[in-house]
């Protein structure tokens, strides 16, 4: 019966097989680093910090084109976005953010970096200062959108005791968050390089620029909050006492001056190019020795970090892909640009008698305006990437009727002719036809003039500017103005205006709130400032009051900060076809209200501070709701 031994032999084999199960099941991960691996090497720490940089919050960013064009400064020539112009405003949860995971990860970074003993002191100091900047920046973002929030500065841990109440922290006062941002900036500025060539990592100037902006915001909320008493909470979570205004303005001015003095590095307005409009546009794409830019979200070709802003927004005609032209700046916005004599005037489409004005060149109608107009907006009759932008709505015939088409570059037969020819621009405008310049304009800011930047497989490396010197000057101007230093304010503003071709200086007496507001609107357009400016000045509900805009309203109150801006208007150009007339081949313009614009925006008091999510309140009963919600 020796065969019977096979059975135990085989069983033995099977059992021996099982003794190394654990080893068989252990499969090493291919993309996970341990604590030790991270905290022993500068480049791994930078890898971790890089992720925190990448998660910086911007309300507007080139990574998300609609985020830059809201509030009727532009129409969206994109079928999926028409709804934005057919509703009556914004939900109470708009612009919400509550990313304490981000805060926790920064807090963990700070905790672990502080404890790391294998890094040099110099590296640690800089890493820590950068992390604190990112944390302060996000608290700034939180306070702008949500008001005061719980100020969590340590990584919290739940102990599974069943009672999490020790983790419940109430909202800090709005002013306390601003104070924190300001004090952090002061605490870290000297640990950061004063190096104007470093744009994507935090520098001393970036910390100061954040401080100046935060202090200015806090100051204006304190000062103008009195106009909207209903937008405040008794505990100070929303609203800052008016008495604190001057203190904040002073801090804003001091911080701005520290940059202007050159202490934080050699910053200056960008003035490389003789063509002032081209010069203005170049600020946003010229990365070589750009003296103006302070802090950016940087992109790089062939790195995996690129963006499609140019694909989405460049002129549709001649685009590398079958899309583009989504952000169409509105006529309302275009008319905000001054004439070179510092006066405001509508775009002249008719003479005083209401008769149309005829222009030989399409772009002539915009002549004599602030150079920033053509630097920000792609005007009809200009060109991009060496290709003429083909924006025209049709022919006006001798009898006044319009001959147009409903397709880009559509062909029709003109009266008296036998073969069809083009009767509408390849860039439109065609009402309701997406990607054409429905407002009559395209956006120029951030468009990448490099060939290939509109290709999906290539995209663009144009950086997104978060802080730049011109804003620092305007912040200084506003703070100085509010502190009663009109001359200083004028001085700062004139620097910015001169660069835009507005060479007649404003005097101290010219500086008004409206002037300050206007200057920021045109200089910083589409850079993510407009909403926060309207909010902190408490004028958003006046600008967007829910009433429609008619043709007559358009040209009224130009230059006034509270001018109604509830609907985007368009400006369409037509070519005259009347061989018998001297005007044949000339251009006329008409303001147009697009058929897709049917709503009028109303900014509710409850929009000043975003509602706090129900689950946040459920999870922490100490959190109070925002006003008017």
């Amino acid at each position, binding site marked *: 019966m020796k065969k019977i031994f*096979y*059975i135990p032999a085989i069983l033995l*084999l099977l059992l*021996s*097989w*099982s*003794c190394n199960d654990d*080893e*068989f*099941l*252990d*499969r090493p*991960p291919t993309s*996970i*680093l*341990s604590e030790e691996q*991270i905290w022993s090497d500068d480049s*791994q720490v*930078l*890898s*971790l910090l*890089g*992720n925190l*940089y*990448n998660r910086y919050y911007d309300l507007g960013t080139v990574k998300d084109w609609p985020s830059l064009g809201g509030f009727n400064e532009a129409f969206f020539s994109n*079928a999926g976005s028409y709804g934005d112009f057919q509703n009556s405003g914004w939900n109470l949860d708009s612009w919400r953010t509550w990313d*304490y995971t981000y805060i*926790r*990860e920064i807090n963990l970074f700070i905790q672990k970096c502080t404890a790391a003993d294998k890094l040099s002191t110099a590296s640690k100091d800089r890493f820590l200062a950068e992390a604190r900047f990112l944390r302060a920046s996000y608290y700034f973002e939180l306070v702008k959108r949500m008001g005061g929030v719980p100020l969590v500065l340590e*990584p*919290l841990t*739940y102990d599974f005791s069943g009672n*999490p109440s020790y*983790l419940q*922290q109430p909202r800090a006062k709005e002013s306390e968050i601003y104070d924190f941002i300001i004090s952090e900036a002061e605490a870290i500025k000297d640990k950061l390089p004063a190096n104007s060539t470093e744009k*994507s990592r935090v520098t001393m100037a970036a910390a100061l620029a954040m401080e100046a902006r935060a202090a200015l915001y806090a100051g204006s909320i304190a000062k103008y909050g009195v106009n909207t008493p209903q937008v405040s909470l008794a505990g100070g979570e929303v609203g800052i006492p008016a008495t604190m205004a001057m203190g904040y303005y002073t801090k804003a001015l001091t911080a701005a001056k520290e940059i202007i003095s050159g202490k934080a590095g050699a910053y200056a307005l960008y003035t490389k190019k003789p063509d002032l409009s081209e010069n203005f546009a170049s600020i946003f794409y010229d990365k070589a020795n750009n003296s103006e830019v302070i802090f950016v979200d*940087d*992109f*790089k070709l062939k*790195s*995996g*970090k690129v963006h499609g802003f140019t694909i989405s927004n460049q002129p549709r005609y001649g685009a*590398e*892909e*079958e899309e583009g032209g989504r952000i169409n700046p509105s006529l309302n916005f275009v008319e905000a640009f001054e004439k070179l004599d510092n006066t405001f005037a509508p775009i002249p489409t008719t003479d005083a008698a209401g008769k149309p004005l005829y222009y030989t060149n399409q772009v002539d109608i915009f002549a004599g305006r602030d150079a920033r107009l053509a630097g920000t907006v792609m005007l009809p009759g200009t060109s991009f990437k060496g290709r003429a932008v083909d924006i025209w709505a049709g022919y006006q015939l001798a009898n006044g009727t319009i001959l147009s088409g*409903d*397709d880009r570059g559509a*062909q029709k037969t003109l009266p008296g002719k036998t*073969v*069809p020819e*083009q009767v509408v621009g*390849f860039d439109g405008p065609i*009402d*309701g036809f997406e990607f054409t310049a429905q407002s009559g304009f395209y956006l120029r800011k951030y468009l990448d003039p490099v060939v*290939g930047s509109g*290709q*999906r*497989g290539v995209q663009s490396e144009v950086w997104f500017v978060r802080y730049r010197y011109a804003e620092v000057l305007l912040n200084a101007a506003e703070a100085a103005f509010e502190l009663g230093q009109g001359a200083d304010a004028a001085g700062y503003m004139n620097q910015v205006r001169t660069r835009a071709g507005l060479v007649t200086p404003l005097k101290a007496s010219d500086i008004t709130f409206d002037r300050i507001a206007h200057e920021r609107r045109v200089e910083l357009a589409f850079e993510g400032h407009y909403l926060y400016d309207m909010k902190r000045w408490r004028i958003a509900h006046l600008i967007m009051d829910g009433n429609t805009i008619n043709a007559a309203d358009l040209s009224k109150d130009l230059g006034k900060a509270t001018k109604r801006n509830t609907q985007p208007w368009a400006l369409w150009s037509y070519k005259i076809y009347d061989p018998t007339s001297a005007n044949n081949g000339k251009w006329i313009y008409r303001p147009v209200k697009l058929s897709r614009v049917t709503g009028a925006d109303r900014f509710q008091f409850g929009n000043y501070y975003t509602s706090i999510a*129900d689950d946040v309140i459920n999870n*922490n009963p100490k959190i109070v709701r925002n006003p008017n919600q």
Partner: protein
Amino acid sequence: MKKVRRIDDLLFTLMRITVIQCFLACLFVGMSLAHDGRGQSALSQKVSLNAENQDIKKILRQLEKQTNVTFVFSSKLIQSERKATIKVQSSQLSTVLDQLLKPLQLDYKATDNLIVIKPDRSAEKVSEVIENKTDETINELVDRTISGTVKEENGNALPGVSIVLKGSQVGASSDTDGKFSLTVPNGEATLVLSFVGFLSTEIIVPNSQSQVDVTLKVDDKALEEVVVVGYGTQRKESLTGAIATVTSKDLERVHGGSTVSSGLAGKIPGVTFRMPDGRPGASANVQIRNMGNPLFVIDGIQQDAGQFNNISPNDIESITVLKDASAAIYGVRAANGVVVVTTKRGKTGTKNTVNLDAYYGVQNWSRFPNVVNDSYQWMAGKAEAEMNQFGKTSITQAELDKYKAGTEPGYQTFNWKDFIVKRNSPLSSVNLNMTGGSDKISYYISATRLSQNSVLGREFTFERSNIQSNVDANITDNLKIGVQINGRIEIRDQPGIPGGDDYWLPRFAILRNRPFERPYANDNPLYLNDIKHNETNWAYNNKKLGGYQTDIWRVLQSNMNAEYKIPGVKGLVARGMYSYYIADQVMNGHEYTYQAYTYNPSDDTYKVTGGSTNPWRERRTRKIIRNVYQGQLNYNNTFGKNTFGATFVAERQEERDQEQWAHSVPSNNVLPLMYFATMDTYDDKDNQLARIGYIGRVNYNYANRYYVELSARRDASWKFAPDRRVGYFPSASAGWRVTEEQFIKNLIGDHSILDDLKIRGSYGILGDDDIGIGPYDYLPGYNYNQGNAILSGNAVVTSRDKGQIINNISWFKSKITDVGADFSLLGTKLTGTVDYFYRLRTGLRGRKYDILVPSELGYSLPDENVNSDSQQGWEGALTYNGKAGSINYSVGGNVSFTRSKFISSYKPIFNNSWDQYRNSSEGRFSSIFWGFECIGQFQSQQQINEYAVNIDGQGNRTLLPGDLIYKDVNGDAKIDDLDQRPIGYTTSGQPNVNFGLNFAVSWKGISFNADFSGGAMYSWNQSWEQRWAYQNDGALNSIFLDRWHRADPFDLNSEWIPGKYPALRYNDGGHSNYNKNSTFWLHNVKYIRARTIELGYSLPKSVLEKLKMQRARVYINGYNLFSIDNLKKFGVDPEIAEENGLQYPQNKFVNVGISLSI
């Protein structure tokens, strides 16, 4: 410390490397030992004799009776007068033979149980020859030939029958006339005749007889008798689980797609089917009782759905579906049921047969939305829409008149659908296989070539070449080895055009391109027309202008197994199996730059005004390598009425999946290679998995009446934290064959219509490691490669804190209960089965809600195994086989119902009663579709003006007669999200009700089959292109011709004429008609569709004989020919899932084919 560990590590590594090899090697060593050992064992048997001067032949026969040996000798060697005297008591056979034969100068050689007696002098030579088992040697030794004929009961000759001399390997098989001839040793011979489908028969041929005629009886249940269950097979009547099988006979009628799953519609009760996408090479969604994605096991090896779908249907012998706890034996991933596929094998002792199966078919889309192919109607509709929306339009009657005339350039009409869709697209398949077997070796070797085109021109193709080679060999009586090799090359080839799915733009184009747009500038085919959205210009969607995308999978699976009957213990078998799988993917894509032109009639020039300057070149390479090791011990024995079985299995699986994807921006459209200088992306992945299972099963059967089966499995998965890896999954089942019970027999009597009734039940706990966590969620640390940051101008690969580790999660448990019955009635004419099942899953991943931690904590408490859900339903199948004269017919059907329900989460919290009503899933059916109830359409402007409920959120100012009225459920006089209620079922998942119907009629050589299948209780949500007109500024969907409109569209005061759909708006998806899911747009689908309808003719035997063929059949076959359902009026396929209706639909097929066997 370290040193010690090193030695340990080394040992473990050594063990890991060698254990499998050792195990297999042992089996082989055992085999070679056995070779001698077997003969030895025969000779060492104890015998007793008391023979006085007896015929030696008689003595040998006595010995044969006492042992299991057979003597082979020539009568020349042992003349009949040779006598001997021998007296032994319990001596070894060898001793007896030595005593008996030595004096006669004879020697003997034992091979297995065969002992050949031969002259002493040539001992060496003969023994070698015998070992080689050639017939000639046997011939030399024997002197008698038996010949005969084998017939069926109806008198037809039966070819291919295996005839074996009992106890030897001497055998033959019958020829086409059923004739055979066999040389056997002198003396009485026992022949064993066997043939698939017939009862095996033994006959004793006396020495005097040399001619026999045998009639084999048909084995009624032969074909379905043996069912593949986990790690083995069982006789059907002994099954205790819910197990259903579909065989090659059912599968080979389906010529309606290129993958295996697409042929399963309505075939198996409890298997749910939905095929929303029907492109070449597409697969259907198949689930078992809607429990989720099943596990696929092919020839004993766990595989993925891709491998299942792409084995050649011709090579499949059977597909068995384990629906209940009987799947538990497959452990780790069996919680959703198991689909077990067995490929065809050769059979020992069968004639070599060559089979050819080929068919050619044409395909057309079952249904696809139609558009209004008329520029005038398009433009008039737009004018109407603008009047409806804005009260004005820039479109003039004069313009419309030009479109109506349709003569001027720009005003003509072009039919894009006809341009894009090329009808009667071909499909073909050719399979050639050879099968047969000697008495020791059997084989099945097959090659299949399938080629499917698409109705989108002829450049969108799918091609697949399969080989299957299954060889089994009986090395000795105790040792069997087998090799199954399955290989395929799968090629998906199409033009490379923008978008992830190259099949999308051509379909989208049909709804996107407007009728006045034309593909070529000035209709000159040399110039692609700039239609401003050129990606949907079909004239560009080809390999010449667009580019190419070619995706090739090359897959090889090899299974090697050895099975060894352990001597000395009856019924004990050891098995070892090793499987190696390698899949290799190479995908190359190149999208070219191209130019689109505008023709300028005034100077007869073509100007480039559009196109793309964006070249896109990509390549994906992927390699998946899997190893499966299995060691198995089986025991099966019968003691009187008791039959015991036991199985023990140890199994390991590992997989490594490596993938690279690179992208470049080439500088030209010509050269295919990629260069570093133009490359901008390189993604690299390398993942592994590993699982280990130990499985034990015992079954017991008493008198084929009571059956009990118990099994348990211990599984470990790499996915969980080391201390949470192991799960234990037991199951039990029992069956009672009521009709085997004597008192029942007495009760129902001999002439009862009830032939057989078995009641069975099972309960098992199954596990699943697919709980929604990643393999390393238990490890702390940092995830690397979380996007790049550009810092100081350099790209930095970033890392991110992994966050809270999940180390408290383990297997969730899936508890399946099944109660069922199998029965046959009316003399087995009517057979059927019914099942009820309930699956409760507990320990699903979820959150404990009673502790609320502040959101400011920055992390959520980790999920735990706390949630539970259920899946319950029933299914049944019934088949009737009848005969009327020479007409045979059968009618069969099956139906199943299954529904899933969420049971509970851990102390859920709701903010308010609405939140609870809307968002709770506690105790509710899963996959509920929420929407508004449409209670009608406005009939007049006056009704709108007087209507108290604010429907559109804008005081009803956007409403027109014909617009939808929603029910104000909460009575707050406005329609908002609070007015939603459940209105339907899943739109993307499987139907909750599935059924199939099969009819078959045959008369002489003619056969007719019709198979139907259907489903119900699922939904299609009509949206996008199917919901509002002019979506994307595109074409006008034909369904909107039936709409509310004014008698004179230009006159706002003219009367309204009712229609089905609301009045036109131009691309206004935001309107209250369209921006809400409602009962107007949601359709709860019910369908029954013809699957296979086939008419075939088999040549009669008389003709076949002349042609020297075994079988010849021709057929014409239709698949998906028609469907009866409630989506026809929307122009979409009933199984569609995509809301826009633009999914690539299933095809209708018409095929002609032949099957030949030589």
